[in-house]
């Protein structure tokens, strides 16, 4: 095993309070990306 994630980073990754805010942030970000629209590609590049 090679420790690639520092102790501090691991703390941040697993701390429920920090992660609660991350959860809110991630939910909004994912929603914006996915619900943020989709469309064709063909006209745009004509």
């Amino acid at each position: 095993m090679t420790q690639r994630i520092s102790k501090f980073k691991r703390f941040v990754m697993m701390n429920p309070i920090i992660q609660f805010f991350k959860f809110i942030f991630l939910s909004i970000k994912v929603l914006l990306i996915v619900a943020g629209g989709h469309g064709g590609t063909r006209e745009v590049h004509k």
Partner: protein
Amino acid sequence: MSKIVILGAGISGHVAASHLRRKLDKTHEVIVVSPNSNYQWIPSNIWVGIGRMKSKEILFPLAPLYKKKGIGFKQAKVTSFYPEGDSETEKPFVVAEYVSAEKKGETERITYDYLINATGPKLNFETTEGLNPGTNKTYSVCTYTHADHANEGLQALIAEMKKGKEAKIVIGTGHAKATCQGAAFEYILNVEQELRRQKVRDKAKITWISNEYKLGDFGMDGMLLSYGSNIMKSHEMVEMVFEDRNIDWILGAGVNKIEDGLAHYETLTGEYKTIEYDFAMLIPSFSGHGFKAFDKNNNDITDKLFKGFMIVDADYAPKPYEDWTVQDWPETYQNPNYQNIFAPGIAFAPPHSISKPRKSPNGTEIFPAPPRTGMPSGITAKLVADNIIDSIKNNTESLHHKGSMGNMGAACIASAGFGITKGSGVSITTFPIVPDYKKYPDTMGRKLGKTFGEIGLAGHWLKLMLHYAFIYKAKMRPFWYLIPE
């Protein structure tokens, strides 16, 4: 009065049926034909496969829901397509064979005005000799029955490890052109965490085996993503996670034969090798279902409808990787020969892969086929339903709704371990799914910021929330349609 027939009740078939039923009045018929009596939320099979969720938590029976909502349901599998009808039946129809106990073996001609083929993939275990879930110590997590089986195999091995057995675990792809690396990636991390939870991690050597050229390709040619304040490549991110969890990897491997506890594979360098294991989960290749199609005079016209999967409005002209563009990818999922047939989700034939094609010196193609994950499957199904609804309401063909995978984002919330306080997830979003190298030339074809990665407990919560939200939506509970695909 229109009759819309939907083949398949997976993510895309069910999404299409729900939206059609909600937006069309009851004078129009919506009928689903699918062999499985249950709806299953496939992404949570990962947790069934490690025993942290029961399969009954990820499925529900379709018949009562469809009855309540006014959607017709035939528990049958389609075998052939007659898009022009035939001498006996004037309208277009499909032939379906019932699988339900009461009508088993009976066939029926199901006529339609609009047909949505949402039959997803055939799990093509046969193309890899000896790869058959539950035999030769190999398993799959592609369906809930497979996942239950995988969990039994895993728990039996863990019991032996608790008695001192040293075990070799191999997880990845079971064919040179398999896809769905994301699911295998989730499973390997969940198995690793489960071994730690059960205090036998030190007894296991875990290896990732995959047809990817680099880690983190995921069948999407890899990606450049923002990770906190850094910008990194997906292979660097996955490498970091695997090294940190002491998982080895073998890349560019086309698994071609399975024996009891032994996987044979060919590498991109042309070598033939084997790897031993006590437990393996290998994703099979996906293919079309081998449907046949006939014109009104009973001539075989299968190649007008199928190219393995169903032909849609993609550009199938063969061209080198360097000439691929996002414009090759379909926008409306309409069959060009029969305008009332559509194929969203995994059922449509992609124009080519997304990952760069590679061959071994022996001529074997070893690279991932393009994935179509849950989100694009749902989005494409909804846009197909919306175009049919508009066409019916306006009494003229409408293809207003478009959604190319070259202009659509996707979120892959990969579980990296289960547990409200001990769980973890690798959340990756990409925009667009198919890289647009012209639009984003300096960022590997994708928009940075919209293409990002995050690792941590929040990812697990998000995946769990999505599990409950999508099952709520699939059950068509109040305001289900407000939850986006």
